[in-house]
């Protein structure tokens, strides 16, 4: 009776659901997982850097727009004098215009814009953003002297249409070229960074104040 109830030992393997994983299988799994996730982590690290790059780009575009808007639409034509960088100086010395320039310069260029004489300003500056990146900005101005207008078969040269300006030139248009340069390394002056980025804007400002 007892001998019949005892089952002989079997050599059959245990069912698969209870088998588990061997060390080699686990290691291979980790290897595969690592191989898949490594490029993801590398990409995320790179994306972080790119985010800062795009942030700087957006900040530079925003600043360039602000400066160019001020020069094209706000600052009087006669106050923007030719040069690289240009010089802001009111030849008529109107106090209200002087105050406008005084208030506008720190907003446009932040630092480094003081001109050769009191009340004059250079069209350049050094700007530091909230994250610590540095931007150099410079505006050059060129007088367009040989401008003429054609109408009804006649040609009207600038010298016939206007009097000489404060610089002794028959100028009716000024070319404004703006450059912003920035470094992608925090706190680094873009002028000493060969990897610095640049953007440019160009505009022509007409003498509409006569």
């Amino acid at each position: 009776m007892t001998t019949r109830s005892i089952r002989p030992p079997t050599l059959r393997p245990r069912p698969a659901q209870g088998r588990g994983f061997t060390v080699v299988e686990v290691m291979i799994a980790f290897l595969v997982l690592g191989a898949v996730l490594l490029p993801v982590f590398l990409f995320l690290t790179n994306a972080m850097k790119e985010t800062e790059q795009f942030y700087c780009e957006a900040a530079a575009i925003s600043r360039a727009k602000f400066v160019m808007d001020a020069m094209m639409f706000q600052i009087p034509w006669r106050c923007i004098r030719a040069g690289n960088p240009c010089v802001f100086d009111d030849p008529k010395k109107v106090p209200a215009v002087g105050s406008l320039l005084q208030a506008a310069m720190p907003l446009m260029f932040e630092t480094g814009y003081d001109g050769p004489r009191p009340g004059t300003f250079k069209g350049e500056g050094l700007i530091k953003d909230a994250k610590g990146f540095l931007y150099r900005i410079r505006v050059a101005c060129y007088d367009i002297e040989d401008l003429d207008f054609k109408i009804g078969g006649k040609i009207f040269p600038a010298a016939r249409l206007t009097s000489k300006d404060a610089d002794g030139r028959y100028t009716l248009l000024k070319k404004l070229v703006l450059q912003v340069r920035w470094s992608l390394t925090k706190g680094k002056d873009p002028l000493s960074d060969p990897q610095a980025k640049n953007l440019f804007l160009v505009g022509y400002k007409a003498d509409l104040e006569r």
Partner: protein
Amino acid sequence: MKRQEGRARVDVPAPRQRRGMAVVVVLAFAVIVGVLLFALVSSSTTIGSQNKLTLHQLQAYYLAHSGMQHVQLKLRLLPRETYEAFAGGSDPNPYADISSDDQASLLVCPNGPFDLFTDQVPKDAEPFRGSYRCESFRLSGTHRRMKLVQDAYRIKIVAEVYPKFPASLKNHVADVIDEEIIVSRFTGGIGGP
């Protein structure tokens, strides 16, 4: 017999069937990772290209406003001559000469590397290729009251920027200003509509 059928339903799948699941799980995992990577790459690329597009649109915007200021300047200086050009009826666009490409001093075209932070910046070169032109200019009305005579003009300025110049003129960015300007025929004073 019934009991045996009941047991067969409750049993876990055979080992061969469960191994097939592993392939499905791995494939699903690979697809999820792939989608994640694609989403990350595409979102990053989009921000970069958006910044570039914004800059090119801004360049075109200032060129368009340059063209508009150029037109206003001519209108202020030659208001009577402008009206007479229309009265004569011979010229459909007497402001066709307002074009940055038609005057050498207004040409916006690069000529090698450009950097304002160096000492030698060529006066006749610009950092990118762009242009503006007065596409159409027409007399839309004349107003007479007492001694005041005002003419209204409809002006359309088109500005274009070519980011891939000189390699290609494709993918250019344009900006258009379409405005009406009222000018005094004898003083050149400009007012808005």
